[in-house]
């Protein structure tokens, strides 16, 4: 897509971005900006909400309405915005720390509540900004700055969590699979109800280094190698799934978003008031 079409959606004076060389966040950010451009979003009617951490800085580079909030609370802030003005397009950009860890509870309930909000999760499997500590998605056995002897906990499979919690559209790509990512983002941004796109992302400075995954190029290679299309993933023998990442669309179903359901509540409340039916 021509750069000229994407530029209006970028705060070019803040570029180049501040992320480390080889960080996957730039790939995710440019995919988001491209998706905005392809859909021709009205900047005045678009709101991006971020939390804290590396990907929490994504809003610095997006020329739409933006809230840089508190750690893990992006979806809760987005909920207030969308509930008050359903005509706004609301996008939450989060890392795995924000979404799966400190914000885990908000994430579950956002999936269930089903407001038309798109969550984009850049999952680099650790807390990059704070120095490479483990997060809610860090795989068991991994080395991080707070699991130097090997991580004792299992990480979340965010897509399966989202699908189980009731999200309408759930898909996963990696920073290597950019065309897939583009497609998923476009679908998510036009989907009714809660949508989530998870992007497996590279952190060569912390996660890559601690786990001897090599530099930026090798980490890209890593995602190419370990990514398996969802339908094939489940055909693999259990032992072969070890270390692999399923990519694809985990959930895509129609449903009634919160906005529509709540309009009915408002109508019922007005009717009750008018008819004095439910005076308490």
């Amino acid at each position, binding site marked *: 897509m021509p750069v000229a079409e994407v530029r209006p959606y970028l*705060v070019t004076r*803040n570029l180049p971005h501040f992320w480390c060389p080889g960080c996957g966040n730039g790939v995710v950010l440019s995919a988001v900006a491209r998706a905005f451009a392809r859909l021709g979003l009205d*900047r*005045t*009617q678009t*709101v991006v*909400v971020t939390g*804290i951490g590396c990907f929490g800085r994504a*809003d*610095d580079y997006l*020329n*739409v*309405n*933006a*809230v*840089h*909030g*508190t750690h893990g*609370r992006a979806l*809760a*802030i*987005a*909920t*207030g*915005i*969308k*509930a*008050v*003005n359903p*005509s*706004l397009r609301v996008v939450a950009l989060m890392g795995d720390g924000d979404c799966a860890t400190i914000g885990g*509870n*908000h994430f*579950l*309930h956002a999936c269930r509540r089903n407001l038309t909000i798109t969550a984009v999760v850049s999952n680099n499997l650790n807390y990059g900004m704070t120095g490479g500590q483990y997060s809610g998605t860090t795989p068991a056995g991994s080395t991080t700055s707070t699991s130097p002897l090997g991580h004792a906990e299992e990480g979340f499979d965010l897509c399966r969590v989202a699908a189980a919690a009731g999200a309408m559209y759930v898909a996963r790509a990696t920073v290597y699979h950019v065309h897939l990512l583009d497609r998923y983002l476009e679908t998510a941004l036009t989907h009714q109800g809660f949508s989530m796109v998870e992007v497996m992302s590279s952190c060569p400075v912390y996660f890559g280094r601690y786990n001897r995954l090599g530099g930026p190029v090798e980490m890209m290679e890593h995602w190419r190698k370990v990514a398996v299309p969802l339908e094939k993933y489940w055909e693999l023998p259990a032992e072969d799934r070890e270390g692999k990442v399923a990519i694809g669309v985990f959930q895509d179903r129609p449903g009634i978003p919160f906005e529509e359901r*709540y309009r009915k*509540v*408002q109508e*019922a*409340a*007005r009717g*009750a*008031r008018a008819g004095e039916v*439910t005076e*308490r």
Partner: protein
Amino acid sequence: MAERVEFWQGNEAILEGALAAGARFYAGYPITPSSEIAELASWRLPAVGGVYLQMEDEIASMAALVGASLAGARAFTATSGPGFSLMQENLGLAIALEVPCVVVDIQRSGPSTGLATRPAQADLMQARWGTHGDHPAVVLAPATVQDCYDLTMRAFELADMLRQPVILLGDEVIAHARERVVLPGSPPACAGRPEPACPPEQYRPYAGGPDGVAPLARFGSRYVFHVSSSMHDETGFPNAQPENAARVIARLHEKIARHAADLELYRTYHAEGARYLVVAYGAAARAARAAVEEARAAGLPAGLFVPLVLWPFPARALARAAADAREVLVAEMSYGQLALEVERILHRDVAGINRYDGEMLTPEEVLAGLERVLTPCP
């Protein structure tokens, strides 16, 4: 329209005050003794086109309030001690983003779950200092059910005027008491928060005008703008320069200081020339008033000072009321939080009349406190 008289519970009056002030968004998490506000909001708000959201916790509730306010709604929540603690993180967010909203804290006994349904007044310092960082706090405290209605409306007005969250610090006794409330015939028109008028490309959401407050656009209007919990400059984008940080922190404080006159609100009873001045707010002020009336009837020159705005405290008014007082007594349902503030303002020791067992302070106890200072222990 004629004046209307209602017989309302404090919590009901708070909800009605919020609706009258134009509130259209509530996000909260149920907790005693504030829950009636949520229950009433859940059907009264949608009836006026508003939204009630029961969030997963108080952290999310406060975050949703910030979002809703940025999208243009007059937004509020209600909670109680432990829930108020959870809200502190995003109360700080509202202060940093300078987003107007109203937080009702109906105090109950603590610490922690404490005596969950019993009255107390021990969140005074939490209301002032609960969130981290240097920031001002605006806290109103109703002493009657009428106050619940009037001060809730005032809280929304101040929040918009100051671009600042405003806390209504009630207590279990006031929240659950039923009293007569007189509603004005024609409710004062809601000014709403000032919106920018400049061309969109010139809008700077943090360029405080002469009074330190910048107009706040809403998401979805013609203005595209950016707000950040990180230290930001006038554009709303992060700016970590020390001189910028100092300017922002100073402006946050000064915008409240500049409106000191608007924020001074208190009541006095027999305070003129009083030799024994009782200071009390909320439920304790009710007991103190009865005690002071009785003391006066017995010929004791006692008076009462009731702050209705607790932060910033009406310091000059208190100093005036205490000018002739031989003794100042602070009556409160806490181990002594208000006493700290009164001592700080008056630069003198005060006598404490404290109750912190989850029971209501009684007029007899306040009276006993007055008698104690009359006859000091040998």
